[in-house]
């Protein structure tokens, strides 16, 4: 027990917690924005995959890192747009459309990767984002080293949490987005084009998911592996429910989840002889299910989530 407690206090642990949390923060925010507008986006897993692939390929082909992030975001938005056409404009089942987007985006990622990168046993690498130390803030003990001794993308994720909060709660457009997910008829009566609002939200959310994926290949690791998203997208869908659709809670949820993940990885190393490592690897998935169980009963789903909106509809 003491050992665990001592481990919790090391900067090394917290630095890795933040590293694990960053892609989850991006993608959870992305899913949150989509769902706030009333659209479930199960394309998340595929959009993260193609974001990871697209950003990495951009840099591998000689582009610069930030260009890669922009490229990943644009690719993500394209798939978000596709999901919008199906789920928002045509009003098909959001579940099936999302799964379809995931299948399409991940198969295109693998197709493109195999096409562009000649086969080799060791995947080629890029020079990823380097650590950027924030002056002053990084000198705070433990927390400073953990939170402000990271790559620039991580700082971008902090800023996006604040921006998302500010936009959703303090700006008229945020009210419009939330209303599209709660009571689209009221939106329409204000002369607002609900379909357009939803499409915009899904595209913006998908861009964030893609950046979350790109973080993995461009900052956490330096190569693209098949199946590297490994359910992170689905975990983010669970995190959105756990966070009751609030950006601040989503941030905390991602950190909390990442803490368990980091502890789990360390426990794997210590307990490898006694307990098979797979048991530890299962923990994040169980944890996500547990998190949903805790909040499920009182979960305040956006009221119009999953319900397609048709102009002129009356509820």
């Amino acid at each position, binding site marked *: 027990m003491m050992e665990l407690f001592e481990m919790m206090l090391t900067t090394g642990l917290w630095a890795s917690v933040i590293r694990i949390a960053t892609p989850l923060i991006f993608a959870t925010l992305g899913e949150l924005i989509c769902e706030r507008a009333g659209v479930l986006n199960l394309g998340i897993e595929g959009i993260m995959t193609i974001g990871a692939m697209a950003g990495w390929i951009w840099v591998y082909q000689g582009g610069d890192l930030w260009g890669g992030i922009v490229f990943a975001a644009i690719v993500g938005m394209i798939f978000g747009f596709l999901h919008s056409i199906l789920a928002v404009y045509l009003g098909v089942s959001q579940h099936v459309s999302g799964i379809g987007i995931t299948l399409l985006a991940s198969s295109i990622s693998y197709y493109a990767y195999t096409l562009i990168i000649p086969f080799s046993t060791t995947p080629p690498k890029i020079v990823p984002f380097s650590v950027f130390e924030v002056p002053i803030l990084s000198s705070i003990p433990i927390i400073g080293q953990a939170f402000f001794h990271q790559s620039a993308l991580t700082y971008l994720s902090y800023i996006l949490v604040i921006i998302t909060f500010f936009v959703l709660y303090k700006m008229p457009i945020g009210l419009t987005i939330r209303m599209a997910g709660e009571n689209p008829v009221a939106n329409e009566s204000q002369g607002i084009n609900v379909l357009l609002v939803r499409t915009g939200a899904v595209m913006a959310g998908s861009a964030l998911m893609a950046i979350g994926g790109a973080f993995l290949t461009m900052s956490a690791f330096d190569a693209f592996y098949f199946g590297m998203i490994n*359910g992170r997208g689905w975990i983010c869908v669970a995190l959105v429910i756990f966070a009751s659709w609030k950006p601040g809670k989503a941030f905390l949820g991602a950190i909390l989840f990442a803490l368990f993940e980091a502890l789990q990885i360390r426990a794997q190393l210590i307990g490898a002889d006694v307990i098979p490592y797979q048991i530890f690897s299962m923990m994040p998935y169980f944890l996500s299910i547990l998190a949903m169980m805790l909040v*499920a009963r009182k979960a305040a789903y956006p009221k119009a989530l999953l319900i397609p909106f048709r102009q002129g509809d009356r509820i």
Partner: protein
Amino acid sequence: MRIKTRRNAPVWLIAALPILSIGVAFIIGAFFILWAGESPINAYIALIKGSLGSTFAITESLSRATPLIFTGLAAAVAFRAKFWNIGAEGQLYCGAMAATLVGTGMIDLPAPIMIPMLFIAGAIAGCLILLVPVILKTHMKVDEVVTTLLLNFVILLFVNMLLEGPWKDPMAMGWPQAARIIDNGVLPTIVAKSRLHLGIIVALLMSVLMWAIIRFTVWGYEIRAVGHNQQASTFYGISINKSVLMVALFSGGLAGMAGVSEVAGLKGYLTLTLSPGFGYTGIAVAMLAQLHPIGVVISAIFLASIYVGADAMSRTIDIPNYIADILVAISLLSVLVGAMLTRYRIVWGK
């Protein structure tokens, strides 16, 4: 642009829809082939030859279709009741584990008893694992989409653990695979010099059975009613929880049988590469069939031929075989659009 309900969609349109969707997929897929610097026409000729060009190719396509019929039925039954079971992949592995547990020497009975027993064991395993998300949904209101998806990863890790630990076959030269299914449990091949096995007959029987259940029984009626309108069904006295439970049992059981069929039929032993995503492809199969159990057979064979053809094509022409996944995903998305257009009309302008 607005969307209006269309009263009667012509039957030919509904029947032509899956074919049109696959057509659209091939047209869009052509751009991906052009991207690879190859001629789409040559590529598609190679694909068709590879999937239908010889007796062997046809049997390969049919044996690839076998697990897809099971997982397609699993998705179709669940989606009809709007129960979003996206966990067929995990349930498939549960079925495969059950078949391995029972079929590798625990008991040895004559084949006519042994084989049905393996299928029943697999179906039970698939049901049991799906029971977790079902109970979480009916008792705690936990969304089943995320739980079924997450359990896929848990189950795969569990299989991995067994294959690297207690179930590892010492005769397998260090490969992580389980012991072979005993001779009496192996599904016999039904066409000489091919890999097409008894599993497809079982799959066909199950699709007829599911069709009959959905069409003629009270259960089937309840499943359809719950899928259409939950409120009305409750009002009518149908217990939603009971129907969801029923659906889940069918759905998980069918997916579990897919695993049995692969382990005892095609591979002969459990590995981590048993299923290249059959559970997820099953969703495309079910949607292309517009959730009709008999339609599932046809669309499973269609999609299986695309996979088998693409494998063959990638051996002769330099195109990654992921093209098959792209084609299947596009046909899934276009059938969604198409199904919408048969039920609604788009009216341009105000």
